[in-house]
């Protein structure tokens, strides 16, 4: 045991206190730190880079077609590197599913754990407002989503230029990096609201994890059922992945997967974000307990 309290004093700190420019950063830092404490999360996070690796190999092979002719056996039509290739990377089911998986494991407890441990009262007894709190939590999600989308997307473009040894690709599609950043931003904003909304409705992080999966998958199943009944592509608007794929195809200038104007999908995604914002606004102050 250390020295007794009697022998200790308490001295004033003489340093200069600065206004923190990013008061939400400690929340983000803790959120990321806690996610990487989970073994299962680390595995899922590593697995989420598999699509990027496969597409990177595809880009490499596309520049060395003659070397791989024997293996490709006519499949080289898939290796036509252009906006469609990138659109396929960003909107394929497996990448979106892996993002959901990463967020379910790594971000499900972002608010749920605070509600469970009543940590909000510690946060809000500090120089921090609700906006800072939410930005801090959203930044955790942004970190994961951007690292799985914008980062590999831009790296793929860079490697395409490196493997090709020229800037021809960039000059041909100068808007492509913007489309990558734009779609990554859209995914970030949507998933930030989606995950935080579900994380705020329960104190149990495991239950939230199931909900993050459940709502995502169930919405797609519902789309399938309703399309079978009503025979209209507009039922795609009920599906979270379908709306994200519609928006992605639009941003990359590709044919839309469903015969529904992309603006409808943007409206649905924006509506869900607004709903989440309204719920979060209520829930974050809704922790008052009678004592």
């Amino acid at each position, binding site marked *: *045991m*250390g*020295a*007794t*309290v*009697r022998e*200790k*004093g*308490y001295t*004033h*700190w003489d*340093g200069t*206190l*600065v*206004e*923190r420019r990013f*008061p939400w*950063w*400690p929340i983000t*830092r*803790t959120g990321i*730190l*806690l996610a990487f*404490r989970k073994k299962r999360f680390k595995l899922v996070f590593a697995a989420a880079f598999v699509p990027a690796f496969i597409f990177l190999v595809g880009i490499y092979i596309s520049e060395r077609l003659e070397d791989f002719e024997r293996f490709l056996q006519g499949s080289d039509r898939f290796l036509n590197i252009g906006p469609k290739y990138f659109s396929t990377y960003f909107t394929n089911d497996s990448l979106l599913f892996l993002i959901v998986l990463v967020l379910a494991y790594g971000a499900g407890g972002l608010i749920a*754990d605070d509600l469970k*441990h*009543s*940590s*909000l*009262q*510690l*946060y*809000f*007894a*500090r*120089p*921090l*407002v609700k906006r800072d709190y939410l930005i801090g939590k959203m930044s955790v999600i942004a970190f994961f989503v951007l690292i799985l989308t914008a980062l590999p997307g831009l790296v793929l473009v860079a490697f395409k230029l490196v493997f090709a040894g020229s800037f021809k690709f960039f000059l041909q599609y100068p808007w492509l990096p913007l489309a990558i950043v734009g779609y990554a931003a859209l995914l970030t904003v949507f998933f930030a609201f989606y995950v935080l909304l579900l994380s705020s409705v329960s104190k149990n992080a495991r239950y939230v994890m199931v909900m993050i999966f459940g709502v995502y998958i169930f919405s797609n199943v519902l789309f399938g059922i309703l399309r079978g009944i009503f025979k209209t592509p507009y039922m795609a608007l009920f599906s979270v992945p379908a709306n994200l794929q519609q928006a992605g195809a639009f941003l990359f200038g590709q044919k839309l997967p469903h015969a529904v104007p992309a603006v409808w999908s943007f409206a649905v995604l924006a509506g869900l974000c607004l709903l989440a914002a309204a719920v979060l606004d209520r829930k974050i102050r809704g922790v*008052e*307990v*009678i*004592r």
Partner: protein
Amino acid sequence: MTAVIAAFHLSKWYGNVLGLNDVSLDIEEGVTGLLGPNGAGKSTFMKLITGQMKPALGTVTVRGRKTWNDPSVFREIGYCPEQDVFYEDVTGWEFLTGLLGFYGYARPAIEERAARALDIVDLTEVKDRLIRGYSRGMRQRIKFAQAIAHDPEILILDEPLSGLDPLGKRKLIRLIKGLRDQGRTILVSSHVLPEIEALTSRIVLIHQGKILAQGDIPYVRELIEAHPHQISVRSSDPRALAARFVGDVSIQKMTFGPDGRTLVVETHRRDDFFGRLTGVVLEAGIEVDEISSPDDNLKSVFEYLVGK
């Protein structure tokens, strides 16, 4: 002396439930004890002071500034909540440095402050252990450490002594007194009178969301003395015992308990009664199994005060 914390006609409802009712109160430098039974409104009052709740009516100010929606006030306030408010999977060190990050200190200052706070509460040796592995007393101490780590002028401590062993209590009481001597303003809540008495003579009695009394402990004790005390005596012959006290003018009321062995006495002069009881028991040879004061708990005292 000027008020550091001032509440003016402060009220708070939880839906239809009244949490705090028209409280006007000035809290000055030094230690003030907020005393009341569970559910009295102590935590509600503290959460209003720390800006975690918006008052339904009235205002609360800290050094003249309203606390609601002004996070900059919290640089001056250290808050120790009653509940456990931790992520279990962080270490004590990470917990403290993470929270200190909100105040805008550079990393070396954060580490220096966290180390000092841990040292003060004697948790340096276990700072790298996950909070999940902390004992009840350690949890209380790390909670206290986060309240003092940023060196606040005002400390709001919600039941800080609950869950501590006698030694831990003594240490914390000494530490709070040390902070008081440095001129800080400290508001401590408790539902245990002796705990508050050990810390300060200035107390505020709160019950059902209202301030019942405020002042020095002798004044409050006097207030309590004005109401009869209940004393329960379990003996072999309660009726014989009662017969001895019938003529005693200090006795207001006597009843018998349902077990037939208990005499319940109400008196204004408790000490006199105990003095006489010893003599009576010895004279009459009545065996006494147990003497207790059912209304020694604070809630009963408060119910007297509100006239229930």
